[in-house]
């Protein structure tokens, strides 16, 4: 049966915001998984950070916690500790995960909890009116940094690879079918899956927008050396390089619930701590 994934809340994203398309792709992905009988609607649980992306909490009818800024990842890991049979989706922005929550981002790959991080990257703190984030390009002028960003941006894909990520993918907020299939693969991955969605903000840091023509699709990759090369192609700074989309790296490692005997017992018995 098709799950009802809509809510009664009024959508307050800006007209035309690509977050609407991300929401559509997330709903399609969950619908397909539920309709195919692979997962139950009640088994999905989300954590959302704070920022424009996080409003998805109000529009997506699944369980979850609307977290504090920077903490969607550890709270999501907590849900998998509390019940490793739940399907956890964590939504975070580039400000949330890379600035306020960087320690959690790096450690998430180490723990390899079975969950999916959906990272909306528009290279801007938009809900707080456009301050630069760790992935904003050099020279970006904003109200908090009127002299322009001096520093080179971080490359989160390279960081994730260095942190032994077991699933890294990139997709485009304007491409609903690609987002849907990428998210489905991420949710099906056993371990911590990281999906970066390249997204425009229509109001702030508009110079970073319009990268669609640089994007191209790659084949699913599981070669680490190759992944390192793919990760180098887009530097978040200039528009000179190409932007590869697809599964940049996937490997098979034990997930958190497979490593810890206490959690393994719960997943084997398909139960929670109450029936331990």
């Amino acid at each position, binding site marked *: 049966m098709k799950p009802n994934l809509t809510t009664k809340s009024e959508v307050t994203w800006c007209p035309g915001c690509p977050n609407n398309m991300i929401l559509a792709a997330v709903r399609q992905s969950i619908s397909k998984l539920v309709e195919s009988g692979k997962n139950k609607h009640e088994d999905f649980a989300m954590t959302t950070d704070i920022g424009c992306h996080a409003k998805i909490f109000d529009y997506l009818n699944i369980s979850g916690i*609307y977290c504090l800024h920077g*903490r969607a990842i550890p*709270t999501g890991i907590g849900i998998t500790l509390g*019940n490793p049979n739940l399907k956890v989706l964590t939504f975070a922005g580039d400000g949330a995960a890379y600035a306020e929550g960087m*320690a959690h981002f790096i450690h998430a790959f180490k723990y390899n909890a079975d969950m999916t991080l959906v990272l909306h990257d528009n290279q801007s703190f938009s809900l707080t009116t456009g301050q630069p984030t760790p992935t904003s390009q050099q020279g970006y002028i904003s109200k908090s940094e009127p002299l322009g960003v001096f520093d080179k941006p971080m490359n989160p894909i390279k960081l994730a690879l260095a942190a032994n990520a077991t699933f890294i993918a990139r997709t485009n907020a304007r491409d609903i079918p690609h987002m849907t299939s990428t998210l489905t693969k991420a949710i099906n991955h056993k371990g911590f899956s990281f999906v970066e969605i390249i997204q425009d903000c229509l109001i702030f840091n508009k110079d970073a927008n319009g990268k669609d023509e640089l994007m191209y699709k790659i084949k699913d990759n599981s070669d680490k050396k190759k992944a390192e090369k793919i990760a180098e192609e887009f530097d978040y700074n200039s528009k000179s390089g190409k932007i590869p989309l697809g599964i940049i790296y996937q490997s098979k490692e034990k997930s958190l619930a497979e490593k810890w005997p206490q959690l393994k017992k719960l997943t084997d018995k398909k139960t929670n701590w109450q029936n331990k």
Partner: protein
Amino acid sequence: MRLNIIIGGKAGQGINKVSNIVSNVLGKYGYFTFNYRDYQSLVRGGHNFNALSISDSPTESNDTTIDILAALDDRSVKNHKQSLKKDGMIMTAEKFENEGRNINIAIAGAVLKILGIPLIELENEIKSQFKKYEEALVSAKKGFDSQKEKFSLKKLNNKIAILSGSEAIVVGARNSEIDLYIAYPMTPATNAMHAIANKQVENNLMVFQAENEIAAASMAIGSSFAGAKTMTATSGGGFDLMGETLSLQGISGIPLTVYLASRPGPGTGVPTYTAQADLDIALRAGHGEFPRIVIAPGNPIETIEKTSEALFLAEKFKTLSIILSDKHLSESEFSSTEKPNKTPKFKITRTLPGKDIVKNSSYEVDKYGNSTEDPVLTEKNADKRTEKYNEIKKFVEKNFEMTKIHGKKNSKNLVIGWGSTSGAIKDAIKNLDAKFLQVLYCKPLSPQIKKEIKKANKVILVECNITGQLGRLIREKTGIKIENRLLKYNGRPFQSDELKTLIKNKL
């Protein structure tokens, strides 16, 4: 009868083993012991000592003067000989140099001989402690035979159990069938983490070390949301980091229990010593206004009871419970013949994700659990949180022990204190015309406190902090300012004889 022993040495020389063997043997021989551990923030060297008090009646403190100084190094003699009583004795490790790493076992044997304990008691203890005990037994006997009996302790019939505050946290948590303990190491909270991590698989629970305290608290919230009985733990500095998560608890209503074992601040302060200076943050940390429970046990038996109550109340009222302890309570080894009260058992009965759709939020929410900025709902939600606190208060007043009275019940001289200081106060007021009101629940605060203060002619506040934090709380809730204050804030706990003199001077 009361004897005080100091066992001193360098970190790494094993003074804890000495007090451990002596306390265990004395416990089985029917004597109450109290062992305070004074150690520096270093791994090897320096000067550490244990103060071990022995009594034929319950005791939870040390005295300033000592009967036996067992010194594993010269610095221990230098530092403590001025505390010796006139007939006090010094015993050094010189005689036992050949015992190598078993010097501490020889010292334990020597102390027990001085106390007049039969050799067989020592031998039994050594056999129960070591798998390969032959070598240890030789050292213990060598120590034992090197001394003359000085105090002839006769066997008593008390059934004594020895427990530290940290171990008691674990007993309480396990009595409540805890599932997850998520923390980041910080003295003096870490010993409880070590104790619960040991045998976690056999005990059907999980201990997870997070990347920092913010993550620990966030994971605790996440796992509690998913239906696990969860606790997190830290000291003051880590608690500061958890502040935002406490606030998230307040609005989201996801049950959360935090064990806060405090030490002297501000900043890194004196990290391996003690203070009661974090009552303020336990009561107020976290932005916004929301209900919470703060419970401060004074000894391990109370810690067992209050840990279970904290977990029970957090789940029942979907609220924040804080168990407030400190280095003195968590790391000292107490002895007792008492048994804790029956555990308030509970099951999680709320709707959980996996069964239905459950939404909890850091925003104010509408009836669906989605965000709202509506003024009517904003006000209504705040009212609900306040109403919840009123319910908590009513329930706790009816069901749990919020205060205790010790000493002369009809005395007009009232001493007020809380937490680990309670031990020294209980011992200090013995034979004085005074009663001691021990505050166990700091939030909610018992209405009994005001009544007791009104009945008294003289009220004395005793705390290990510089501003009298409980005194300020009592003033806030009752309008009564306690003028007589005995405050200690050098990182060391009150000693009972020291405190007795101070109280006497106020009477």
